[in-house]
């Protein structure tokens, strides 16, 4: 491979990384500034990436589908090389953006098919029952804006979705007197309808 060929490959790869990184940063920053809950943040982000996928798909297939307008045959060697370079780069953009789309759309779809949940159980020890709990989704984002306090002095707590767009928490962040105490993965008993789970904070 000649240096000219290497440059011709490196250039599109760098531009691809820069474009993808910029897209993710810009979209994430925008969504975060909007203060959306994780579900709507994922929906918005995945819609943007889906639009990007469609856009780059269109660009990818446009040269191949376009018919010569003049009726003359283009220069065979040069035309084939240009088409190949453009389409591979475009295809990479499509693949990367589709990957991001899947990444953001997956939790949305998995939640849509299982939107109801209830987390309940008793948390004891340490500063219980003066603690409060922030539910975190699979990507460690708070599912509620506020910290949820136990329902009584036994440390019994119930987390229920605000609406159908509230993700199921996978971990919880326990706060004591406003300070983070522990981040714990929720045991299976906390998802049981019997609510007989117990976490000891010792």
């Amino acid at each position, binding site marked *: 491979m000649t240096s000219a060929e290497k440059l011709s490959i490196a250039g599109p790869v760098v531009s691809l990384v820069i474009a993808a990184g910029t897209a993710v940063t810009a979209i994430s920053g925008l969504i975060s500034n909007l203060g959306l809950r994780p579900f709507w943040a994922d929906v918005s982000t995945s819609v943007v990436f889906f639009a990007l996928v469609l856009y780059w798909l269109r660009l990818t297939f446009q040269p191949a589908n376009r018919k010569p307008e003049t009726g003359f045959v283009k220069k065979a060697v040069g035309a084939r090389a240009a088409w190949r370079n453009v389409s591979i780069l475009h295809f990479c953009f499509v693949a990367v953006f589709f990957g991001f789309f899947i990444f953001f759309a997956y939790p949305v779809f998995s939640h849509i098919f299982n939107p109801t949940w209830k987390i*309940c159980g*008793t948390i*004891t*020890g340490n500063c*219980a029952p003066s603690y409060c709990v922030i539910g975190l989704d699979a990507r460690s984002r708070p599912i509620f804006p506020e910290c949820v306090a136990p*329902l*009584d*002095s*036994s*440390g*019994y707590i*119930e987390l229920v979705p605000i609406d159908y767009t509230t993700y199921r928490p996978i971990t919880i962040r326990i706060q004591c007197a406003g300070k983070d105490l522990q981040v714990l993965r929720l045991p299976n008993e906390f998802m049981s*309808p*019997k*609510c*007989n789970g*117990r976490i000891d904070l010792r």
Partner: protein
Amino acid sequence: MKKIVLIGCFVLFSATHALAQPATKQNCSPNTVSVPVTYHFKDTDAQYAWIYHSLNPTLAMVQDRVDPISTNIEDGALKMTFCIPVPAETERLILRVGPRAYDLAIRPITKLSSDLREMSPILLVEQPRPDWVIVKSAKRFETEASDLPSFEVELYNFGQAHSGGQVVFEAFHYWSLCARGSTPARVKVQVSLSGQRLRIASSDPEYPEELVTRDAELTKDINSCSANFYLRTDFGTTGRLPPGPIRIRYTLKRAEAKVSLTSSEQIKYYFTRGYRLKVIGEGIW
């Protein structure tokens, strides 16, 4: 405003040990919910059976308090089951354990069968140690020197120095006594006190054998053979209770009745068969 609410402690001679018996498995009646509750003191020195036995737990929804249908001590915790009417989701439960009251949320209720419903367990674990006086035991025993019994009250002060409580003996009798007199009638009882580490106001420690006179009060209608008979004897104050264990002995020396009873042995009968000893005072349980 001075708080004058007195918390009474009822120590049944038989019930003192009743809770120590193995728990029998009982089911709640239809249309009620079984509520399992676990109560556990954090400190190991507060996890003794006699402490849990003294707690007399009750569960209430609005006003009606219910006693547990079963109690058991396992792994240093008191495990009990209550039966309550099916509550609404918004209702609250009030659990009273000794002088403490817990306002509890309703847990999910599972239908075990067509009749049986069970609430998810309520766990009150690692609770702070008691900070009140517990009546550990109340015993009656016969002495050779007297035909009247002696009483021994064993207390344990988990808190700071306590001002003390009033010790009262109660006896009920039904149908088998004929008494004549006016109401209220009095029965004079002489009590000698001996306490460990105690300064009993009514007893001079220099003269421990000195008798202290107490009045036993007869109430209700006594001018009948068929009337219920109620005898209440005030044994006086325990005096100041220091932290830790305290044992007080009351020895009855002589009993006189200023009421016409069917026989002179009736007074003795009441003290030997009598019903219960109470220690009454704020923060005594």
